[in-house]
């Protein structure tokens, strides 16, 4: 089974730029399905990025973040070949994690 997380981290100079896409419906709880019934809210609450045993970025998301959420940030440090760990948990307690290599 493929991971829900896609991440591209590129080290350049003294910083690493991270772009990440996560597959998730991010249902707001306000949208109706084809039968006219409300689709219950289902969204990622926390996404965490770790490098070298340290949290480098933490996203706290509400239902207003778009489907298949994208986020971009950069941090000081990180060299090619280092691990970058991405993990998320949603409002139903589902979670996923991925360890990617910095390029």
């Amino acid at each position, binding site marked *: *089974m493929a*991971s*829900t997380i896609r991440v591209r981290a590129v080290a350049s100079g003294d*910083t690493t730029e991270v772009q990440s896409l996560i597959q998730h419906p*991010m249902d*707001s709880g*306000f*949208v*109706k399905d084809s039968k006219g019934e409300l689709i219950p809210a289902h969204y990622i*609450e*926390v*996404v*965490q990025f*770790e490098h070298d*045993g*340290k*949290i*480098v*970025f*933490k*996203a*706290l*998301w*509400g*239902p*207003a*973040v*778009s*489907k298949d*959420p*994208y*986020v*971009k*940030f*950069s*941090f*000081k*440090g990180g060299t090619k070949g280092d691990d970058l*760990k991405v*993990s*998320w*948990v949603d*409002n139903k*307690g589902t*979670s*996923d*994690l*991925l*360890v990617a290599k910095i390029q």
Partner: protein
Amino acid sequence: MGEVKMALSPDTPNSTRRTVLKGAVAGGLASLAFGGFPFPAFADADAKDWPQDAFKQKSEADALKTLYSKSAEPSDKVTLDAPEIAENGAVVPVAITSSLPNVSGIAILVLENPSTLAAAYKIPEGTKAAVASRLKMAKTSKVIAVVESEGKLYSATREVKVTVGGCGG
């Protein structure tokens, strides 16, 4: 290996187990490639970190008070990049950068959405005060970027016109 397990297990046995199972299932091939489970140095993303009350607020003042216990003042050192007109309210690209020193947090508020707070980011030391992501907007609204720097809050505001709402309307 034993040490890593010890460090993990005492306070969060359930989430550890979940992580391991998840790693085994979802990351099947990836785990093999890494020569075993990707054991975390410490706990993964934890729903306990999620500021539930802040996401329930319906106004800028209440959301900021709940999240940061203070209010924000406008600053030209906060840059909010968002389209003037968003054709599709389901996907509105929003980027925030700031030249303020020691930024520790960034929040994005959409005043006309059912919940004002859209997203909040924790910026540890060493991470740049720059975040880009995509938001849903119910209708035309003021979007406010809030940056926490040295214990104070600074903001930048932009109006984004939405042609087709992104909250099922």
